[in-house]
């Protein structure tokens, strides 16, 4: 057992979280559930960014993480506003029911 966790350990953890989030995005029917899956995937990417920044001894990756976290929060706020708007118009939050553009 090494004295401290290697970079691979963090990357493997992030990969597992990313795959779990992807599974959620594919299988969830509720739009809010899909958004939660996207959150998990973005979170995994943040772990990768911070791990690489720490193991390279460079703070720039952490600056990037600050940006991604902020943009994710804005994305969630906007996405949920859209969910609420769609719910008002169509009275549903299930993604499969939103087939207005189906030919």
């Amino acid at each position: 057992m090494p004295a401290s966790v290697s970079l691979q350990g963090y990357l493997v953890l992030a990969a597992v979280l990313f795959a779990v989030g992807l599974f959620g995005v594919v299988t969830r029917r509720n739009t809010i559930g899909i958004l939660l899956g996207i959150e998990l995937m973005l979170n995994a990417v943040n772990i990768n960014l911070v791990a690489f920044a720490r193991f390279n001894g460079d703070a720039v990756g952490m600056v990037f993480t600050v940006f991604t976290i902020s943009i994710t929060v804005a994305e969630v706020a906007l996405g949920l506003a859209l969910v609420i708007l769609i719910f008002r118009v169509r009275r549903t939050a299930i993604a499969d029911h939103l087939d207005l553009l189906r030919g």
Partner: protein
Amino acid sequence: MSLETIAFGGLAVVLVASALAVVLTKNLFHSVLWLALTLTGTAGIFLTLDAEFLAAVQLLLYAGGVVTIVVFAIVVTERLVGDRITQTSRQIFSGLIIAGAVLVGLLTFILRAPLSRPRPPLGGDLTRAIGDAVLTRFVLSFELLGLFFFAALLGALYFARPDD
């Protein structure tokens, strides 16, 4: 086995378990609560990487902000009690195939990449380094981020405005 390894192992178990709970639990509201646990655990992972500032940002913005917004959205679109909040999943088989394929691809890439370098010693205060980089090298991106936030919040307000 060092304390840091134990902390990482415990956090990894909590993270994977709560992430699975987010995508598998039937109740959407419980799903959000599990997500809050996942995001808090991620802040702990950031702490093991000596990124205290990012851990604080993670707790404030993600575990505080995002979870609150999602709970509000659930309250608006679903009833908190009763059957409507239960969500079903579909296409579990294809979801497993896609997620498993991505995971296997990522893992083979990670385990074959020449990454086994030791962690360098901490060179000074990382929070100070982040602040310096944000206000010098990345100052334009930082200001654009402010503009982006303004646009996103205006858009969210516009979309979610009450009917007149």
